[in-house]
């Protein structure tokens, strides 16, 4: 039984560019949440998707957007990248509001 998977593992972009990160949830899970983890910090909640709709959103600007597909997989898009967007981006999946299980993350570096 595959756990949560994310792609790519690492990504390097320059300021102003756009990036798309992908996540496949654990089998049987229908809810996907995205987090940003800066160096030395705990994960900060970006948003959560359920039934292909954004159900809840954290304190992140509109440059951060997402999507959930019918197979429950999800994408995180970030536009107009800033140096401060450099972080580990974590995807977590759950069955509705049950315990969240995390993927390995995507390390984004903005130069």
């Amino acid at each position, binding site marked *: 039984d595959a756990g949560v998977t*994310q792609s790519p593992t690492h990504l390097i972009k320059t300021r102003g560019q756009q990036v798309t990160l992908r996540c496949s949830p654990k089998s049987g899970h229908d809810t996907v949440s995205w987090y940003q983890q800066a160096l030395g910090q*705990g*994960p900060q*909640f970006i948003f959560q998707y359920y039934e292909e709709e954004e159900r*809840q959103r954290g304190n992140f600007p509109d440059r951060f957007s997402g999507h959930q597909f019918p197979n429950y997989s999800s994408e995180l898009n970030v536009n107009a990248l800033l140096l401060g967007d450099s972080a580990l981006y*974590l995807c977590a999946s759950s069955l509705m509001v049950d315990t969240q299980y995390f993927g*390995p*993350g995507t390390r984004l570096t903005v130069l």
Partner: protein
Amino acid sequence: AQSVAQPEDQVNVAEGNPLTVKCTYSVSGNPYLFWYVQYPNRGLQFLLKYITGDNLVKGSYGFEAEFNKSQTSFHLKKPSALVSDSALYFCAVRGSGGGSYIPTFGRGTSLIVHP
């Protein structure tokens, strides 16, 4: 608003000794509490959770945590530490109702187990 405090940035313990990683929380209503572990350049791995019931919760890899409602604490413990337990540990809390089911994480505590 809900919050988590992990008062120690780093905990050092000798292999074979008991370990404790501290966590206190603030949340409206009954808490759901979680511990996760993160190894370098990896995602968070679920260890254990408290929802209701027995205040002592047992989890993966010999870890356990004790829920103390009066002290609003949920400390992580292990009777005998291993060098391989060295990692970053995160405590998280969320409320049991009210519309928000998103956990809030602490800043993390680095556990270093010395041989």
